[in-house]
């Protein structure tokens, strides 16, 4: 480790734990506590990357999270911020987007044509001819920056958490810690979020005395019960203080997204040091004062041998002392507060050899340290509605006003001594806690489940803090030469001036046209310089130009963190274990895992048609309707009439939305005078419930009806087939005689020893059927009892596929399959169920009109080629053309009929029996279907189900 210094009093590395790793193919060693960047630098390497566009060699600039020059690939993890990510043992760290190597990168040839690669070059150059774009894209993609994604990499675990602290403090510097401490001492629950790996802010790389203050504050913060998150970022502030936080290191997850609902948010994000724009400002060896101070004091790394320091503030001055202590020769100190200036660096592409200063002086050096001012990262304040205002006397932006539940402290709020910053932070924490009490009182009083509140809501605490001062600072943005403004995007000040001359002279337009501020640093380093260069180009002040609006996220977030923990709810019936144990092929229908078949769907059809089959139809939506006004509700929701349904009977109904489009259908039975059971489609269970509640609660609150969803309170089993009556007679005392229990009737009673079962005679298969609804906790018992009792009858389970085949054989449509979002009720052929003589029902006005229109018609079809089953949604076209006339909505090969059958939506002129339809297959070939007389291909009279 050639550049490692002797132990520094504030270093965070553990020299007792060396960590071997590989950088750019070379064996290296770092220590626990090193960032990847500090470890690489300690091993004598100063080139970390190549720039995005021109592939110029780049070295460390800020040596922290925001460093635009230090993105690396760590094993299979691309785009790692090496200035922030801590070193781990054995990792292989590689430079990104260089070929063939970091040292010799042929793409650096871009520099030779750099003057042609002006802003908008791609937009202007590759727009014509359009047909060549695929070729352009292929070539340009090889120039895309970033690392390589290995799609074979196992997915990492990303966690999510919700929390509701009284106070969230964004920033763990001295003011942030003081705010957190004061808030906690005032009784608030506090979440303190720090971007870096440790609390302390700039004190971490400060003097012994400063670090002692930080350590004391941290100890008090932790003792006060503040929840501290380091290596975490408050990424956004949203409405009502919804605060997003990414926790980058956690014992059980690579990242955790925290959604915090803070009663008050304290923004103490500190200040971010700003680079200076001059010729050669991206040459390796140009560093900000904070970078050299971090390298020396935190990681004991020597940043160079001979330095020029361009200082306009205390940080620059302090860096001089640090460099001297580290044994770096100070070749010159240029004071930016007077007339001193840096004009350019000179040397090779890979290193500084000399620094050209104002007055014509040139100084040999391999390190240039700049300390020219600060960017106020007002992002979170922008997100809270603030529009920061530029103060030319201090050369940075300040908040102009925030909501009552967002407070600002620390460097964002102003300047002062350490004691003054801590005092302001403390006052801010107390204020935040006080306001949180009032906000909590309001929330608690408005939440029905919450503990009772005492007294009236307290007044929001007044802001009586003594404002921080503002230390004068020279406006230093660009020298007399041009240089890089956005290191991430390789955008220079010349580019900005050129864009402004082209007319992109609004800061928001300039940003988007040149991409300045749009890279991984997200404007933290380059926004103010961009604005300053534009102001200069426009001949205006920075205040007149204004700044861009910072939107979430504060710092880039991985897609994994955004996705968080993925929940994919699954539903199963009580018979599911049996299905699994007996080889059912599962299919996901909505959230339900259902048996598609048990190995032979055609055989299952034949068994139902011949013997008896049972199917688990638990997902069928079920609603209990209680009350004397249920018929009114049914008359409203269904298109047909429900005035005269006797107890013990069931009726089919069609449900439409206000626009007459079919919404759902199902059977509803009257179990007693005031209790009804409604069934819906499986997918409509939730929406029909909400639909009914919506009408009851908004239009008819006077109706006495309660609607209760009971879909999975019952296990639902359809027993279908000519032997179903025989089977059921073995398990129930309910009188099954057709005269006593006819088609479309319902009975309740005991089945297989289970009380309170509901049984009705309906079915989707066209066979004599009994639909059983049994208390779900006994569903498996009844299922197994059916199989046992009917063994000699040939009973066997059948799945969804067999049911689909049989319902097409019977011509039954499925809402959502054979209808779509435009299918009005008359299309289904159920005009007799649309009772326009009813006083009112949902969709009546639209259906009154629709009944007179030539709407598409749902018809039953057979393929002329009995072996061809066109895929569902196959288009029906006008013969000899591609004009779409309709589509096949359902299709299957019928084992009962031995031919290919289906349902289709066609225009009225093609709906009559015998019409021939031209169907386009997936292959592009065409086949012919013939419209049938009845919807039902099989037993159109319904004799089999009425026996």
């Amino acid at each position, binding site marked *: 480790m050639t550049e490692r210094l002797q132990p520094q009093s504030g270093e965070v590395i553990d020299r007792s734990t060396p960590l071997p790793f590989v950088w750019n193919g070379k064996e290296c060693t770092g220590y626990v506590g090193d960032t990847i960047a500090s470890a690489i630098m300690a091993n004598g390497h100063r080139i970390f990357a190549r720039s995005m566009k021109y592939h110029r060699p780049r070295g460390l600039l800020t040596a922290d999270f925001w460093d635009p020059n230090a993105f690396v690939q760590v094993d299979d993890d691309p785009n790692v911020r090496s200035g922030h990510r801590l070193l781990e043992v054995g990792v292989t760290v590689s430079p990104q987007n260089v070929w063939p190597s970091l040292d010799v990168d042929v793409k650096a040839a871009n520099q030779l044509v750099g003057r042609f690669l002006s802003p908008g070059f791609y937009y202007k150059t590759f727009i014509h001819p359009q047909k060549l774009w695929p070729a352009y894209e292929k070539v340009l993609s090889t120039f895309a920056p970033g690392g390589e994604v290995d799609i074979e990499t196992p997915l990492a675990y990303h966690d999510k958490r919700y929390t509701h602290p009284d106070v969230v403090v964004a920033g763990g510097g001295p003011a942030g810690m003081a705010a957190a401490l004061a808030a906690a001492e005032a009784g608030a629950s506090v979440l303190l979020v720090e971007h870096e790996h440790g609390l302390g802010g700039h004190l971490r790389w400060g003097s012994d005395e400063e670090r002692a203050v930080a350590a004391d504050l941290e100890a008090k913060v932790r003792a006060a019960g503040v929840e501290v998150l380091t290596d975490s970022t408050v990424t956004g502030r949203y409405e009502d203080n919804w605060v997003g936080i990414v926790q980058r290191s956690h014992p059980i997850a690579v990242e955790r997204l925290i959604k915090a609902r803070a009663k008050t948010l304290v923004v103490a994000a500190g200040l971010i040091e700003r680079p200076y724009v001059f010729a050669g400002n991206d040459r390796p060896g140009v560093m900000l004062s904070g970078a050299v101070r971090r390298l020396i004091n935190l990681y004991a790394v020597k940043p160079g041998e001979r330095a020029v320091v361009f200082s306009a503030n205390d940080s620059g001055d302090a860096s001089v002392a640090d460099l001297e202590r580290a044994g770096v020769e100070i070749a010159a100190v240029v004071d930016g507060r007077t007339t001193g200036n840096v004009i350019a660096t000179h040397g090779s592409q890979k290193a500084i050899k000399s620094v050209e200063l104002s007055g014509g002086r040139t100084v040999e050096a391999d390190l240039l340290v700049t300390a020219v001012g600060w960017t106020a990262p007002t992002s979170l304040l922008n997100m809270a509605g603030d529009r920061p205002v530029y103060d030319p006397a201090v050369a940075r932006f300040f908040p102009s006003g925030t909501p009552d539940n967002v407070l600002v402290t620390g460097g964002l709020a102003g300047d002062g001594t350490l004691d003054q910053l801590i005092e302001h932070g403390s006052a801010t924490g107390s204020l935040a806690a006080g306001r949180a009490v009032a906000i909590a009182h309001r929330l*608690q009083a408005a939440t029905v489940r919450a503990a009772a509140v005492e007294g009236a809501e307290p007044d929001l605490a007044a802001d009586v803090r003594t404002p921080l001062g503002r230390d004068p600072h020279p406006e230093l943005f660009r020298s007399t030469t041009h240089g890089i403004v956005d290191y991430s995007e390789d955008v220079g000040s010349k580019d900005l001036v050129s864009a402004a001359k082209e007319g992109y002279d609004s800061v928001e337009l300039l940003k988007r046209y040149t991409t300045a501020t749009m890279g991984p640093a997200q404007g933290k380093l380059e926004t103010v310089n961009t604005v300053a260069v534009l102001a200069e180009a426009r001949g205006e002040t920075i205040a007149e130009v204004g700044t861009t609006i910072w939107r979430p996220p504060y710092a880039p977030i991985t897609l994994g963190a955004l996705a968080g923990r993925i929940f994919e709810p699954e539903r199963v019936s009580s018979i599911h*274990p049996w299905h699994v144990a007996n080889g059912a092929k599962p299919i996901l229908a909505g959230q339900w895992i259902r048996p598609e078949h048990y190995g032979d769907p055609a055989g299952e059809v034949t068994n139902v048609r011949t013997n008896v089959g049972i199917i688990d139809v638990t997902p069928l939506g079920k609603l209990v309707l209680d009350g004397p006004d249920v018929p009114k509700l049914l008359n409203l929701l269904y298109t047909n009439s429900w005035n005269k349904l006797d107890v013990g009977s069931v009726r089919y109904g069609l449900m439409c939305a206000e626009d007459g489009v079919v919404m759902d259908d199902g059977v509803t039975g009257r179990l007693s005078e005031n209790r009804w059971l409604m069934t819906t489609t499986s997918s409509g269970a939730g929406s029909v419930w909400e639909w009914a509640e919506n009408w009851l609660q908004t239009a008819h609150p006077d109706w006495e009806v309660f609607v209760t969803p009971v879909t999975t309170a019952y296990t639902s089993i359809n027993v279908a087939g000519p032997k179903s009556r025989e089977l059921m007679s073995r398990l129930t005392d309910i009188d099954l005689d057709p005269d006593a229990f006819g088609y479309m009737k319902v009975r309740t009673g005991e089945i297989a020893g289970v009380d309170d079962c509901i049984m009705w005679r309906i079915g989707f298969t066209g066979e004599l059927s009994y639909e059983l609804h049994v208390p779900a*906790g006994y569903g498996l018992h009844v299922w197994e009892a059916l199989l046992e009792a009917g063994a000699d009858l040939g009973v066997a389970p059948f799945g969804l596929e067999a049911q689909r085949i049989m319902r097409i054989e019977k011509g039954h449509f499925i809402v959502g399959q054979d209808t779509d979002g435009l299918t009005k009720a008359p299309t289904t052929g159920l005009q007799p169920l649309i009772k326009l003589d009813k006083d009112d029902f949902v969709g009546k006005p639209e259906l009154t009109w629709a009944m007179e229109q030539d709407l598409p018609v749902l018809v039953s079809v057979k393929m002329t080629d009995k072996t061809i089953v066109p895929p569902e949604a196959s288009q029906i076209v006008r013969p000899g053309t591609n004009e779409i006339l309709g589509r096949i909505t359902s299709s299957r090969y019928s084992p009962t009929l031995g031919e290919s059958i289906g349902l289709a939506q066609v225009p009225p002129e093609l709906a009559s029996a015998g019409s021939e339809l031209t169907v386009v297959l997936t292959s592009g070939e065409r086949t012919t279907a013939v419209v049938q007389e009845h919807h039902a291909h099989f037993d159109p009279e319904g004799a089999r189900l009425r026996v």
Partner: protein
Amino acid sequence: MSDLTIQSPVTRSYSTKTDAAITLTDETAQSRLLFRAGTGTPIRAALAQSFGSSRMSGDVLIAGSRPDEWLVLGEADAVAAWSADVPTEGHVSLVDWTHGRAQFRLTGEPVRGALEKVCGLDWSNAMTPDGAVTSGSIAKVTCDIIRNDVDGVPSYLILVDRSFGQYLFDALLDAGDEFGITVG
């Protein structure tokens, strides 16, 4: 009927831990009644529990689960005994939800942390005190939740549509894993 056992929706088997800070228990076998009652019906006086809160009444737990809606939970005999005498005149709906809901109990000091991983509600003592009743999305499934502490230890009854039972049970175990959880 008497020889039949209500099948639990949780059909997988789990090993238990002795030193876990959180215990997840399947209480689906308990009975659950859902009452809905219109204004002025006599049963409201018997239920006498405001929306958002719960209380023990003898051996049953009465929870005001929504406006005009109550849940009565407990062992089958206790629930049957309690409901035998309640007046059901007027616009009243009584639905046996014993089979319609899976019922789990999550107990332990760090249980709030586990819930914060799967639900966006505020579980602080002020916002969700012992006895509080609410509904919300847990692991993207709508649940009824009753805070029902056991001997001063935070405990939550979670009721979910039975079909989601196995899914939710596993989701809760996963959420509690960070804190140490066992199946009770």
